[in-house]
């Protein structure tokens, strides 16, 4: 059955993207601000519609709407909206404000939403490509800047490779399982006579491609360069919404069609998680550039999130979804500070440029300190609870190596997060940063309050994540 209303949010956003593009082209004057506001409005309406979508399958089983998709979509919309808010002022000051930017972000959002709702390898690919193509363009959005262009190109070449890997894996799976539909693959995998080697190889290729998208070790190499080169608000966007979408997608693919191959893929994820945690914590120690540091930090965080997936129980998967929900908010806060790092009109990227922020802008320094302690996983901040749930899952199933390495790398990670606090509070200032825009203040306040107050009312978010994972299993 067609039942297209299940895809109403995506449809609306697609129409909005086309309309906004037209509206942006026709008038003679600069339309960046109105188009950004229009996009934000569309994202908001999209979120309302997502919350109202019932469960069900559409387009002959190609597209699924369930609690899991809704949870991921809300996070994606949130990430996209903060990315846009942060970009508004930054692009203006950098002289790269163009109305195509919000439209591209909107298109990539649609791609992500299709991805997390996919229940067919082809739908998944369509979503993934819509996302990737938009991202290639916005990575190089500061087109006169060599580093930005380089970031875009690097991302494109490696992204294309990942897409190739994905298609190869998908076609192998199709060849050996006889279908691209998730439920059909699931039946084929569960069937008698064991699993064919072809499906397993195909699955491995699919995992590799998705590991590239979430920048898990050993497919992380592009991350530091792209994060450093891309314009800061673009990096903020890269580190939030697409990461959540890709993690959610990985969870769905592994826990739905390939659920019965858990024994095979758990080992792969186990290694990726271990490697990401180790690399994310040790490689970040000596980084002088804060965007590179955040790149390694994001690799480390993906490692922790994957720990829950490696465990592959309901508790573990719930841990993953909670981790991503809290991570996206912490990340938005940190990048709000990065976006506000600008002195006399020039944007800054060295960690030392934050020196003395505790004096020159106490409110922002306080917020940044909260995010740093939160990322380091110190209670009572939200970041502690995100780690708590994945560690709980790992301990429950006896994954002692992962859990122990996890807590030890979190201590190493604490070192470099503390270093930023040290620079902000203990070192003397070079001079004040330029006044921050109201959008930055808004994101800072929202993310800061969430991190500080999460411990008071954790139950609703935990329940939402639990419902999302339950939908996946059922």
């Amino acid at each position, binding site marked *: 059955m067609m039942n297209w209303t299940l895809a109403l949010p995506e449809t609306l956003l697609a129409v909005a993207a086309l309309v906004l593009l037209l509206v942006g082209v026709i008038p003679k004057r600069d339309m960046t601000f109105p188009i950004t506001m229009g996009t934000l409005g569309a994202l908001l309406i999209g979120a309302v519609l997502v919350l109202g979508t019932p469960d069900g399958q559409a387009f002959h089983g190609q597209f699924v709407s369930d609690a899991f998709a809704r949870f991921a979509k809300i996070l994606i919309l949130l990430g996209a909206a903060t990315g846009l808010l942060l970009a508004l002022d930054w692009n203006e000051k950098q002289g790269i404000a163009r109305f195509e930017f919000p439209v591209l972000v909107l298109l990539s959002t649609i791609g992500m939403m299709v991805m997390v709702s996919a229940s067919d390898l082809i739908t998944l690919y369509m979503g993934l490509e819509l996302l990737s193509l938009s991202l290639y363009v916005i990575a190089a959005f500061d087109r006169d800047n060599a580093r930005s262009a380089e970031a875009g190109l690097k991302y494109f070449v490696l992204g294309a490779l990942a897409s190739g890997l994905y298609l190869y894996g998908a076609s192998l799976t199709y060849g050996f399982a006889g279908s691209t539909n998730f439920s059909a693959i699931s039946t084929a995998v569960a069937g008698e006579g064991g699993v064919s080697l072809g499906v397993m190889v195909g699955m491995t290729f699919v995992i590799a491609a998705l590991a590239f998208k979430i920048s898990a070790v050993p497919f992380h190499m592009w991350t530091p360069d792209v994060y450093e080169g891309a314009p800061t608000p673009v990096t903020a966007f890269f580190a939030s919404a697409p990461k959540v979408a890709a993690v959610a997608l990985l969870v769905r693919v592994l826990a739905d069609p390939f659920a019965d191959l858990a024994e095979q893929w758990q080992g792969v994820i186990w290694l990726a998680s271990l490697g990401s945690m180790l690399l994310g914590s040790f490689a970040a120690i000596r980084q002088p550039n804060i965007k590179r540091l955040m790149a390694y930090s994001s690799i480390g965080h993906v490692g922790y999130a994957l720990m829950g997936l490696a465990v592959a129980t309901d508790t573990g998967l719930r841990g993953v979804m909670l981790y991503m929900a809290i991570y996206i908010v912490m990340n938005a806060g940190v990048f709000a500070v990065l976006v506000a790092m600008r002195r006399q009109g020039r944007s800054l990227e060295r960690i030392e440029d934050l020196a003395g922020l505790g004096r020159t802008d106490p409110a922002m320094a306080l917020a940044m300190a909260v995010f740093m302690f939160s990322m380091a996983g110190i209670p009572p901040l939200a970041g502690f609870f995100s780690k708590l749930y994945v560690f709980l899952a790992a*301990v429950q199933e006896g994954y002692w190596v992962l859990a*122990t390495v996890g807590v*030890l790398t979190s201590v190493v990670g604490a070192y470099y997060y503390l270093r930023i*606090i*040290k620079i902000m509070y*203990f070192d003397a200032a070079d001079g004040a940063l330029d006044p921050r825009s109201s959008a930055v203040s808004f994101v800072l306040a929202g993310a800061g309050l969430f991190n500080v107050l999460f411990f008071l009312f954790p139950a609703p978010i*935990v329940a939402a994540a639990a419902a999302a994972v339950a939908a996946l299993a059922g």
Partner: protein
Amino acid sequence: MNAAGFPLLSLLTFLPLAGVVAILAIRGDEATVASNARWTALWTSLIVFVLSLILWARFDPRVADAQFVEQANWLPEFGVNYHMGVDGISMLFVLLSTLLTPICILASWEAVQNRVREYMIAFLVLETMMVGMFCALDLIIFYVFFEGVLIPMFLIIGVWGGQRRVYAAFKFFLYTLLGSVLMLLAILALWYRAGTTDIAGLMDNPVPISWQYWMFLAFFASFAVKVPMWPVHTWLPDAHVEAPTAGSVILAGVLLKMGGYGFLRFSIPLFPDAAAYFAPLMFALSVIAVIYTSCVAFAQDDMKKLIAYSSVAHMGIVTIGLFTFNQQGISGAIFQMLSHGIVSGALFLCVGVLYDRVHSREIARYGGVAKIMPAYALVFMLFTMASVALPGTAGFPGEFLVITGAWKSSGWVALGAAMGMILGAGYMLWLYRRVIFSKVTKAEVRGLLDLSPRELAIFAPLILLTLWMGLYPSSFTHVWEASVAALVERHEAALAIPRMAGL
């Protein structure tokens, strides 16, 4: 609902945060903000202290179980709930925290001139974390407060500390965090095994012996760093030397007690067999700590460092007492923790008095202070005597009880603890002689002013308590007698079970 008729413990825990909000709301130029922040912080902490006196007044020492219990849902489906309460063991630690906080704020009145608002906020947040930690009856809630302490303390050392403050702050933070994350894994394992993190619930679910060893070691990693026990004590001298005076007071007064309290609250009751198994190791480490750090204390030329090493030695006596598993030993350990909280806090304040005037902690820069500051010399003498456990001062009953308790376990351990008393008398008296007596030769010393009324107000309650604890110790010991007796009884019962099974 509880003896106070209203949620007293939550009020004690979270009232300082109301003070934080009030301080954040202050507007005006720097001097106005500083003065208002000081007064707001002082009043908040004084109100908290007065409220905590209600706790003592309404406390029923005949009851061994938790009193003033409060419960609220937090994550009910996980079996984690907000559960607060105090028993005889924790009640006086709550009072110690609420007493030392206003004293610290008063002690920083003039010494801290820089970012006063942030400083006061850090201290009030610290108070919330300390009180909450001693009241928590749920492991996860306990862990949240236990770790939360690190954030304000890191900032206090790092922002308002001395020359090498960055190094000291990082060392403090990372050492403690490393120990604590291992404990977190053990907490998670306990959690999923019992399906609850409520301490009472965990007690009803005895941990299998094969698990106990690992769990004990994981908890040990955290508490041993906090106490600190030899050989993981090296963060303490650095942190003490670099921290501002008030930071040292709270560090020595309350934060070190978290380790001893943790052993008593979790390690011993939850893992009785492992605790008994590892007791010889604990004794060995404690005796080494007592003797080794006492010897190191002799070699110091920095007053704060000397007192820091003496803290390690005194805490060694505490850990000896805890692992004797008898009424005297544990009672003595609790007494020693409380008296050390007051006495070492007071000694750091004494050093602070000189430091505020001369800006040096080097012993050699002083000499003959008694002739210039007689009142100060008297106060310093009282606390020096208390630190060397002179009978009649707060230091004596604790050490005496611990040695009595240790004698029941092993004569050698008692001997080691007694050595600590002798060596302690040596280095403390030597310190006192070099600073206070001998001829006045330094020009700086000649110009010193004696204690100001503010400083006298700081010392007065500490002097009173030092004498009270020394002269009439039973007004304190009877508070925890019932709780400790119940603990010892449980411990012996738990040890008896496998032996019976073995027969």
